[in-house]
């Protein structure tokens, strides 16, 4: 029997220490992803992480799988080519909330609509961490950031709702606090054929935390617990109460055919030669 792969086969230990601030949840996400890959026993050379630009976008520095680190907002567009270039690959896009939903919003909605077989792990820390804590499309209304000193005037995106409406096959929300759930969701998302989104509500004690909660990591972690409620409890709430929380759990799990399956069905010749060897 083959040697069992551990997270160490995916995680680049010699790159430690992590560049992230102490109390940043990014390390927790990274461990969950590498643990999931190990659970699934996917050989590292069959995985490509496509990262965005931002604090979370730095995750490829710590990965031993194939990796692509491109431009701000485009991880899914690069990932689309990577996947279609070699459909056998597992493509995992790692994006911050600004990366995925502001500058990369167009690629995000079309990836979901197209149902391209990519796993998106969105770190939603409610602001632009890398550039110093400006507001993002997921900053809660009236929160303070460096560019909304009195409070942000824009409402936040519901990342999961958007993903569902656009057609993603798998949509789930968790937090950096709920590590076991996070790992379970990432594992399910990687296995799911089609577009899958795991939104991880994350800590940024340095910026969002300091201005809106408290500067210490424990308070920010507690905040993630306080603002979320799991699906079974959420469903029993009335609308007024629901509005106070973000729901966590598996929100969509379906099997709409992914882009490549449909493309190949419509173009049978494309499937025969698989990876594109010339005829």
């Amino acid at each position, binding site marked *: 029997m083959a040697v069992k792969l551990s997270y160490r086969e995916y995680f680049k230990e010699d790159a430690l220490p992590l560049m992230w601030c102490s109390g940043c949840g990014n390390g927790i996400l990274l461990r969950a992803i590498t643990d999931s890959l190990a659970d699934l026993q996917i050989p590292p050379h069959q995985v490509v992480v496509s990262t965005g630009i931002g604090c979370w976008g730095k995750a490829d520095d710590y990965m031993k799988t194939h990796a692509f680190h491109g431009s701000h907002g485009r991880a899914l567009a690069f990932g689309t080519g*990577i996947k279609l270039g*070699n459909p056998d690959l597992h493509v995992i896009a790692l994006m911050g909330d600004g990366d995925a939903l502001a500058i990369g919003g167009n690629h995000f909605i079309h990836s979901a609509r197209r149902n391209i077989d990519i796993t998106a792990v969105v770190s939603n820390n409610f602001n632009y961490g890398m550039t110093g804590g400006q507001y993002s499309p997921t900053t809660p209304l009236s929160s303070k950031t460096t560019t909304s000193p009195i409070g942000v005037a824009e409402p936040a995106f519901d990342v999961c709702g958007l993903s569902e409406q656009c057609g993603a096959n798998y949509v789930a929300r968790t937090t950096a606090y709920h590590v076991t759930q996070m790992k379970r969701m990432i594992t399910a998302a990687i296995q799911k054929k089609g577009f899958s989104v795991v939104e991880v509500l994350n800590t940024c004690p340095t910026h969002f935390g300091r201005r809106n909660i408290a500067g210490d990591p424990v308070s920010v972690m507690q905040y993630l617990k306080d603002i979320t409620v799991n699906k079974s409890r959420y469903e029993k709430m009335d609308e007024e109460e629901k509005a106070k929380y973000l729901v966590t759990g598996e929100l969509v799990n379906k099997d709409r055919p992914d882009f490549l399956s449909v493309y190949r069905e419509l173009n049978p010749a494309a499937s025969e*030669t698989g990876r594109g060897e010339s005829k």
Partner: protein
Amino acid sequence: MSRPEGVQLMEGNHACAWGAIDAGARFYAGYPITPSSEIAEVCAHELPAYGGTYIQMEDEIGSIAAIIGASLSGRKSFTATSGPGFSLMQENLGVGIYQEVPCVIVNIQRVGPATGLATQPAQADVMQARWGTHGDHPIIALSPASVQEMYYLTIRAFNLSERFRIPVIILGDQVIGQTYENIILPDPASLDLVERKKPLVPPEDFLPYQPDENLVPPMAAYGDKHIVHASSTCHCETGYSNFKYGTNRQLLTRLKDKIYNYTDEIIEVEHFGPDDAEVTLISYGASSRVCKYVVGEAEKEGIRVNLLRLLTIWPFPDQEVREALGKTGAVVVAEMNQGQLIGEVNRVNASNTPVHLASGIDGELIRPEIIMTSIREAVK
């Protein structure tokens, strides 16, 4: 439609698509824009039969991103666009150059800036092709002047991109893209195709950005056991980001030298007309077709004119242009812009030869009369 055989009446854009397919392109990502859309249409129609994939992306930013991704997964990939789309591609063009990703970007130039004259020809993206993406970088750009040449230069573009691991730009124009001319597609088996070098070392010894003796790193594909780390951040031979003093200088120098030390493999020009001339025209693309006609017209007026036609625009053919300048009485640069490549001609003008511009900015193929006027001025 299947692959056209024998003599064909074909549009330049179709010839481009067939050149790409014959060169081994198996992935096209694009966003429709006049006057380039026929390239996408042929690819959508034909690629599946070759085991390839066509995808229509949400914009040109995504299109160039997708072809870079697919190329890293081991497929020859390309996209086609025109001015507005080419502008959107600039940031990721830099990613492709920096990560050394072979791919081809076809720009069928139209009149700009902005929406300009959306269906009319221009050659005004010449400097954009050179410097449109931020930062220091090399680039290769080729300029076809006929439908047949569109086919061959597209194949050449793929070959150069594979040889040098760099995005190559086809700087076409609306005239060449949408003109129908006779073309003969050769037997694909007769073509000399270049494939990227694969690593020869075992996976555990592989460094994805360690160059070979030609300064080009052998290239593994995503999915190979040779792990590829492709980063748009300053990186060392491992591919991982590296911010040590000296790394940036080393990387930028190699990226430049891998092209500029090998310009003899890249640069192609055509000499047309008498050897000794009072006036030498320097031109490229559709404008150079008009120049060939003007050589004869000038002769009727008793002016000896020849033409130096540039098939390679970037890297600029310094030596060939300098030689031409040294051998002639005056130079007229004919281009469909307000004067772009003329700046490069002046840069290499060691002989201080008078240089005039014939500028076609009327949203149509440059008229012979515009070039004749510049010639008459040059011999005054």
